């Protein structure tokens, strides 16, 4: 008798522990706020530190997608190489959760490895395509963009002629069960749809751009045409991408994407709640040091609309709801307990009921989602003809969205270059609109006040050590007794990574923001504008040797004044 009670207790404790242990890793609100304000350094370092190496970790893909987006926003595509490849590998793996489906339906959907809703998967592929394109790997960019163009499932419209919702689909499935017997509803969900060509405009555009860069013009045109068929207002952009003269493509994110929340009976369904409302505002584009074939670019993708569409939903919540909302196990369990003749039967009935209650209590739709997705995406071709060009971007009617991109130059060897730009979601940031470059760096050819001495030694230059940088310092009378190698050793003494390889391919914060990386972000990104468009506190040397060197340099400066 005692052990029976213990058994029931064990079931209860086990299920509760399982439920508690299965909470997905939620992002700290401070990290979200930092990302909204365009301060990507702190969140990406935090994400990098917590990254699990175990591919069966439930947040393996989600954490990588979060890190990928922020690392790209910070203009560091090389640092995103590993996470992009790892994300692609698991997104392309079929049946990743095949062994977890049963448990997720019975207990809790977030027991599964997060792979995201189909729209999150498609967008995940596009960020991988962007990362490859920023590195000039147009063939791999094409592969990733292609992967985003998978077929969608259409269940048709409801009685009002609108696309069905997930709750309506669940109701129809339940009606099928009632009409044709148990299992008919599942068959309806699994086979009652029509596979349809995707309406993912962003995927078509990126696929077109990649093919164009590879010299595959016919395939490029086909993709641009598909984009216009879905969104006719994109014709000027698609025509420009297909035929105009341009050497730089900007993919611009704006707004905060929708949050996934539970809804419906027993919170078994999920829906995406809007954060930034949708509208039709175009993106205004102007270029100094080049030209813009399209000065008002229409939106390529509205993520709110994707998230609300059943076609872009994996229907897992519908399957789960069908199994839980009916509460068959709970009702059956109580019935057994109430009618059982023996104490054993009654006890077993109570056990089943308790299990059912726990399942009902712990079952809910998976609300993990990719928090850093935007509300909308623009694709803009521009032609950069001079070094140190600037591009001004502003969502029409949203002045706080203004961002002036700096440090852009024509691409090497007459090719095409890609830049991913994440506009700020919260409030105006002075650096975003400054259009200035206040620190010398390898992406900027102009001169900057204070660029005659490295930042770590009291100046305003953050170029990696090179003969050219050394010459500049020495011509100004600084570091005349040092070589490039000596300067490299100064950085090494401070534990500062001079390249992505030095940083072991990981996402690290820049020295200007208190980090330990000197890797320059790509010009023409939000990360570049934030780092170099505002002043930062002076560097605090960590090693004794460098502290003494700084002291000597100060004395030299005082002596020369």
């Amino acid at each position, binding site marked *: 008798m005692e052990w*029976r009670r213990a*058994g*029931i207790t064990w*079931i209860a404790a*086990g299920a509760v522990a*399982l439920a508690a242990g*299965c909470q997905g890793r939620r992002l700290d609100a401070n990290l979200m706020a930092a990302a909204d304000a365009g301060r990507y350094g702190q969140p990406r370092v935090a994400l990098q530190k917590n990254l699990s190496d175990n591919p*069966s970790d439930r947040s393996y893909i989600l954490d990588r997608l979060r890190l990928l987006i922020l690392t790209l926003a910070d203009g560091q595509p090389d640092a995103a*190489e590993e996470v992009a*490849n790892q994300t*692609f*590998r698991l997104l*392309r*793996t*079929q*049946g*990743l*959760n*095949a*062994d*977890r*489906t*049963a*448990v997720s339906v*019975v*207990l809790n959907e977030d*027991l*599964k*490895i997060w*792979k995201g809703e*189909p729209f999150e*998967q498609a967008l995940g592929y596009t960020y*991988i395509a962007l990362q*490859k394109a920023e*590195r000039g*790997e147009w*063939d*791999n960019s*094409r*592969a*990733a963009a*292609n*992967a985003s163009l*998978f*077929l969608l499932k259409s269940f048709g419209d409801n009685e009002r002629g609108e696309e069905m919702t997930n709750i309506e689909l669940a109701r129809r499935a339940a009606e099928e069960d009632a009409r044709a017997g148990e299992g008919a509803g599942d068959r309806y969900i*699994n*086979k009652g749809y029509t596979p349809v060509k995707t309406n993912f405009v962003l995927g078509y555009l990126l696929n077109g751009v990649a093919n164009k860069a590879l010299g595959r013009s016919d395939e490029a045109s086909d993709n641009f045409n598909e984009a216009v068929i879905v969104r006719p207002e994109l014709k000027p952009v698609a025509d420009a991408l297909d035929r105009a003269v341009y050497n730089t493509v900007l993919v611009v994110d704006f707004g905060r994407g929708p949050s996934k929340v539970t809804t419906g009976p027993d919170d078994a369904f999920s829906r995406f709640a809007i954060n930034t409302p949708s509208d039709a505002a175009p993106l205004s584009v102007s270029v100094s040091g080049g030209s813009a074939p399209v000065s008002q670019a229409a939106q390529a993708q509205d993520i709110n609309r994707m998230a609300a569409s059943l076609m872009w939903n*994996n229907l*897992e919540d519908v399957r789960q709801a069908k199994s839980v909302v009916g509460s068959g196990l709970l009702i059956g369990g109580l019935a*057994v307990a109430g009618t059982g003749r023996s104490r*054993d*039967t009654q*006890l*077993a*009935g109570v*056990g*089943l009921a308790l*299990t059912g209650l726990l399942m009902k209590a712990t079952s809910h739709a998976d609300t993990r989602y990719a928090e850093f997705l935007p509300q909308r995406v623009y694709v803009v071709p521009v032609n950069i003809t001079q070094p140190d060009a600037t591009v001004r971007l502003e969502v029409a009617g949203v002045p706080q969205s203004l961002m002036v991109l700096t440090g852009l130059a024509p691409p090497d060897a007459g090719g095409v270059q890609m830049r991913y730009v994440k506009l700020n979601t919260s409030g105006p940031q002075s650096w975003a609109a400054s259009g200035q470059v206040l620190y010398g760096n390898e992406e900027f050819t102009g001169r900057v006040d204070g660029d005659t001495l490295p930042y770590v030694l009291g100046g305003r230059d953050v170029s990696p050590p*090179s*003969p050219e940088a050394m010459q500049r310092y020495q011509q100004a009378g600084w570091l005349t007794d040092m070589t490039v190698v000596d300067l490299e050793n100064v950085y090494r003494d401070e534990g500062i990574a001079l390249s992505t390889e030095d940083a072991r391919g990981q996402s690290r914060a820049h020295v200007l923001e208190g980090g330990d990386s000197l890797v320059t972000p790509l010009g023409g990104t939000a990360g570049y504008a934030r780092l170099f468009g505002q002043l930062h506190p002076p560097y605090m040397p960590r090693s004794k040797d460098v502290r003494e060197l700084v002291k000597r340099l100060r004395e030299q400066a005082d002596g020369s004044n």
Partner: protein
Amino acid sequence: MRRLGVACSLVCAVVVVGCSGAAKSTRLTMGDLDDTTAVMAQKLADSRLLADRTPESPRMLIAINKVENLTSDLIPESEEWLLMERVKGSLPILNLGKERNMAFVIPANHLRAGRKRGNLPQGFAMERRPTHEMTATFHSGTRSSRKDRTDAYLVEYRITDLETGTLEWNETFEFKRAAAGLAYD
């Protein structure tokens, strides 16, 4: 009693199943890449292009470029180079170098990157004048249904005379990979 056992077993099974997983993919594997480079190296070694050459033939200097990936899979840039380097560096090709008066030169991309970094000696590779270029393209075609997917891969390696533009050697290699499981899951 038995039902209680069943209930316990259900929860146990659920917990155990929740901690395991198996997956499948049609992505390229290292084995595919190994097979490809081994087959291509042998085909090049056995080719008419090389068979007709002697130590007295005009010097053939071959530049390589990384693989062009036109598949639905990512091939990291390092592997795109590796796929060429392994054909270049394979034993039959190395042995044939002297017998056929042929050699490989540093890829132009590597030379440009080295010069940009400033870590190459003065005048390095000034005499680099390739006569031929070896390139390769990976293609794929996909068929997929609700639960199954097959990718057929076609690999093509080529050597082109840079002066005349003549395609002097090309070979293909095919294989396919199949996977089962829901793509979205």
